[in-house]
């Protein structure tokens, strides 16, 4: 039972991070039908930004500002930097290809991904950096069923939920959200309705990338380590989560992320740590074969 609760918490935290990355994928896909494979790198840059803000504020050993302020600063900086990076990527790597085949931006996305990984390697070196969270924040946290639940994990989970709810409201209630949905539904018609499509797309990229930036900082806080290659695998998991949940669907991305996090932590616990990845991929293949459009996906990807 203890193990179960422990893995539940672990799976939910990991899933929360995947979900935030998946949200970005889903937003961009929903509006542009574009698989932004550079999204993982945006998340990596977010994690690095958070790290450098922390170092700039005195480092894990002796922060010069209160810890909560430091963390807020880390999140804000990472979200802004990642958001701007996402906008830049859209402007330079995707916009020129908007009228092209679907696969062309896929390749330029991979190019961006390779470029960013190595640019960070060039600029900051290959050393793995550590957020070292326990040195400035090691609250005991509540006990649940005999399991110590770490406060950082709770924060991450709560924040992920807040961001998701906020995003849903943004899409459903605001003018920007209406513009977004219009562009997603029919870009040409949206132009004729006087919607500035470029502006909407830029904003979508900013929001999606800012979420990835937040996810980057969260990973740093909970799992400690950041390096220049961390984005690829996380991006892959986020992409998977988005598709399993039903790409284009915001609750789907959240569900998909949590599901994958839980599958990973429970297979590790109850089946085999060694085969956790193999099994989780197998489960996902089965999900996809049974529900080809993802769990909550409604719109057909290809209209027949």
């Amino acid at each position, binding site marked *: 039972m203890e193990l179960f609760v422990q893995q539940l918490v672990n799976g939910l935290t*990991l899933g929360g991070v995947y979900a935030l990355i998946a949200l970005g994928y889903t937003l961009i896909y929903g509006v542009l039908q574009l698989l932004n494979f550079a999204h993982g790198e945006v998340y990596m840059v977010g994690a690095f930004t958070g790290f450098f803000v922390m170092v700039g504020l005195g480092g894990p050993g002796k922060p010069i500002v209160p810890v909560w302020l430091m963390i807020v600063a880390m999140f804000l900086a990472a979200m802004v930097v990642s958001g701007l990076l996402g906008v830049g990527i859209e402007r330079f790597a995707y916009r020129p290809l908007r009228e092209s085949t679907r696969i062309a931006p896929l390749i330029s996305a991979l190019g961006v991904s390779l470029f960013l990984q190595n640019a960070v390697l060039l600029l900051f070196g290959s050393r793995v950096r550590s957020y*070292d969270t326990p040195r400035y924040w090691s609250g005991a946290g509540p006990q649940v069923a005999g399991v110590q639940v770490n406060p950082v994990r709770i924060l991450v989970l709560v924040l992920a939920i807040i961001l998701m709810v906020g995003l849903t409201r943004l899409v459903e209630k605001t003018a920007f959200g209406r513009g977004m949905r219009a562009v997603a539904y029919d870009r040409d018609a949206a132009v004729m309705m006087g919607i500035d499509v470029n502006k909407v797309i830029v904003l979508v990229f900013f929001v999606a990338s800012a979420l990835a930036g937040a996810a980057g900082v969260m990973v740093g806080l909970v799992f400690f*380590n950041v390096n220049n290659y961390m984005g690829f695998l996380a991006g892959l998991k986020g992409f998977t989560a988005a598709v399993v949940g039903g790409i284009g669907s915001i609750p789907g991305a959240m569900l998909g992320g949590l599901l994958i996090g839980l599958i990973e932590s429970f297979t*590790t616990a109850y089946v085999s*740590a060694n085969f956790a990845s193999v099994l989780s991929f197998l489960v996902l293949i089965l999900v996809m074969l049974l529900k080809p459009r993802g769990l909550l996906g409604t719109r057909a990807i290809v209209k027949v």
Partner: protein
Amino acid sequence: MRAATKILVGMMASGMALAACAGGETPAATSTAPAMAGGSTSGTPCTGAIGVMAPITGGAAAIGGEQLNFAKLAVSDYNAKNGTNFSIVEGDTQLDAGQASTVAPQLVSNQAVIGVVGPAGSQEVESVGPAFADAKMAFVSPSATRTSLTSGAFPTFARVIPTDDVQGPTDADFMVSKLGAKKVVIVEEKTSYGAGLSSAVEKALKEKGVDVKRIQVSQKQPDYSSVVALVDADTSVVFATFQIAANTKALANTLQQQSKKAVVFGSDGSFSADFDVPGQYVSSFAPDIKGIPSSKAVADAYTAKYGEFGTFGPPTYVATQVIMTAAAKDCTGTADRAKTSSNVLGVSIPDSILGQPITFTDKGDVKDAKFFIFKIGDDRKPALVN
């Protein structure tokens, strides 16, 4: 119009080429930096290129970058001291045996290359061994620990670090006799290094009647919490065969987060300033080179130039020294590949920066290799405990 284009392009190209020629010397200029000031001491300086096979990019770049930088440092130090003119040729393997088997013939084809430092992984050594044997190219690995590599299959191979069969029992002994371990969890990275060492330790522990559980994790795994949850409360030691010290630290932090009492015992990959959680243990085939007076200069020079470093760098420095010493012996002008290769096993570095003398057995292993075990103190610095 077209002719004019050609002329301009031609002009540009030649201009660039000029710049390129001038610039092409830069890498050599750095590696032979002090040569400008000092010049050669006597006769013609011994010249030759040393191939460095390491995961310079890709997932294990943290290791390869350090190895490459230490090799560069070794070359510039050695050149400055001995008036030689050695240089470095990089070979990026991404820790993949397939890439390594492409890089090896490239180094063989490059006539300037007289010896190779690396490759980093045991599986890479296996895949490049035959090619280097055919070419009579010496290759000295700073990190391949699989015991079987020195069983005679690769006559030109040597390494400056002890094998898994040396480290395994040493670590197991310590866990049982000093830490009183009854129950040990081995968390093993799915790398060639992790697999070999974990097996060696598991075997040694089981012979001592210790309850051993083995958990395999991916090196790219971001989150250890699911793994840590599998560590029972009465486990006393978690042995981590990680290559990246920061990962060991994340493991230790996660254990503490889940209020597990077990201490983390990291293998040599974890011996680095990156793994600094008080109360944990780490073993290494080299003492802290910053603590050795004779090695301090190298450590400081490295830190000043490239920043912090871990375990994989200093042995690379020594491996590079071994190749250069072998090449410089009886060298007039250009060093010779075959001669270098036959000289390697005779090289002796009595005061290596690893704090132990380096001489080789006839199989290419280091003689009388010792292991050092450290406990990380409250000051976050390792202190020798064995």
